[in-house]
């Protein structure tokens, strides 16, 4: 069942000339892992803002078309209700720390406090999430004194603790060092094995290839490709667009060009390894 449905959605930010989204039609189903890729300024973050209800509730501007979340138009949702349905993690680890809590443990609990979760349950949930995300050793620390990578993990923990069915994750690693990136990948891997609906915007195409069930490619505010991950990532036409495809897929396509195709074009290293092994 489509959980989020967009029909012919166009959107223009206030006081700007160009539409950030143009005639976008797509849908997201429950329990699936979606990847959104494409060039910068292609409308990826705007799409996230729409799904999170920030458009039209926080960003004014011109919104046309239909955007339904669980069958109800986005304009009729209020942001408070939406925040308990759809979690949101974004790029900047520094602005995602509340700045009003003095330990990581309290910081992770902040969403639960706002939702009115009973204290006993709150403590258990925070302990669980901290264990799950491997930040147990940080719980006494002041969240305002952590490194960027640590802050991003705490930000994930605060959102995951709220246990929303859907998570929108917008370029979570773009401001992190390699170690921080690695840790965030681990978190995304854990999420992959939960039953949540995940919408991930990410430039690191190998990560997308490894985790995603479905992929949307965006360019100039439109969705140019949309479909199962394997199908989208092996499209030759993608090479003409500014979106990158995994190195191994490029390699697979090159093999085809050379007249020595693999049984199918691989998108992950593991897959390529298996295919080449089988061929021998």
């Amino acid at each position, binding site marked *: 069942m489509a959980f989020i449905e967009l029909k012919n959605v166009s959107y223009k930010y206030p006081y700007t000339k160009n539409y950030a989204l143009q005639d976008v039609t797509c849908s997201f189903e429950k329990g699936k892992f979606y990847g959104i890729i494409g060039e910068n300024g292609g409308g990826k973050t705007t799409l996230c803002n729409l799904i999170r209800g920030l458009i039209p509730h926080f960003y004014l501007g011109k919104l046309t078309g239909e955007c339904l979340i669980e069958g109800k138009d986005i304009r009729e949702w*209020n942001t408070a209700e939406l925040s*308990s349905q759809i979690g949101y993690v974004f790029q900047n680890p520094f*602005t995602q720390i509340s*700045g009003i809590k003095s330990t990581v443990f309290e910081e992770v609990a902040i969403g*639960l406090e706002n939702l009115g*979760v009973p204290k006993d349950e709150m*403590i258990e949930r925070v302990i669980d999430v*901290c264990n799950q995300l491997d930040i147990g*050793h940080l*719980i006494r620390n002041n969240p305002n004194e952590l490194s960027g990578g640590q802050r991003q993990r705490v930000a994930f923990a605060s959102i995951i603790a709220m246990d929303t069915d859907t998570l929108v994750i917008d370029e979570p690693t773009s401001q992190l060092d390699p170690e921080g990136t690695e840790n965030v990948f681990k978190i995304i891997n854990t999420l992959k094995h939960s039953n949540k609906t995940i919408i991930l915007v990410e430039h690191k195409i190998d990560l997308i290839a490894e985790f995603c069930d479905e992929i949307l490619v965006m360019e100039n505010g439109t969705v140019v490709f949309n479909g199962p991950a394997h199908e989208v990532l092996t499209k030759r036409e993608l090479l003409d667009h500014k979106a990158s495809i995994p190195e191994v897929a490029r390699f697979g396509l090159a093999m085809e060009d050379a007249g020595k195709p693999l049984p199918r074009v691989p998108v992950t290293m593991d897959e390529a390894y298996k295919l080449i092994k089988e061929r021998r």
Partner: protein
Amino acid sequence: MDKEFAYSYNDYVKYGNGFKDLNPISKLIIALCLGISSCIIHTWQFGVVLIVFSTIIAIYSKVFSKYIKSLLTIAIPLLLLSSIMRQLQYGHMEGNTPIFNLLGWQWYKEPFVAGMDISCYIIGFSSVLLIYFLNTEMRDLMLALENRGVSHVTSYIMLSSMQSIIDMKKSADTILESQKARGIETDGNIIVRMKAFFPTLGPILLSAMSGTEEKAIAMDARAFSHEGGHTYLRVLRPIPVWEYILDALAILVLIGSIVFAVLRAMHRI
């Protein structure tokens, strides 16, 4: 995972000091009642009583060194300036009683007492508020206020202000350091220093202000605008009866001082 720390949130917030553990609002009532009484009574005698009271509390609650540092920074210039001011203004008036001669400058009693009255009542007021702030964490005060129905938005604004000051100081230091490293003068004459001011403040301010947009979005994702019951991880201890009695006493002092001031005014007329 430090389970012991995690479960410590099951207990009430406590610091292990009788004064510090008072409810932040009870404490505030006491501090304000005494402080305002000082303003109303407006004599050096009451001021001195308050200063002694505050000093005892400061020692008991182990904040004496910070307390005395702040208090002296307020008190010394105030005592000096006000006595000199009043001497300069009213020293020559007829009927004044000479008290001492300072290297040829004759001091008189009446303007001296007037100066003392003013500085001591202000120092008295300051001293009770100082021990209040030194013994109360802002987050506890805000928590207590939230328990009394104040909006969590108010708490956010207050606590976030304090954190923003810390964060912004850090970035100001970084920028000033790098300006020095790049050879921009932060010493030298006034125009030079003035010129250093703008490139320091501008970027800090703009980036901090633009960051608020993301902060609002992040807080929104943490159900900040969720209406309905909030729960709290940190819980203050229930207010014991004797705390109400302390508050009542403080309010009595305030009422007493008003009565005193009114009687005094009538007597003068």
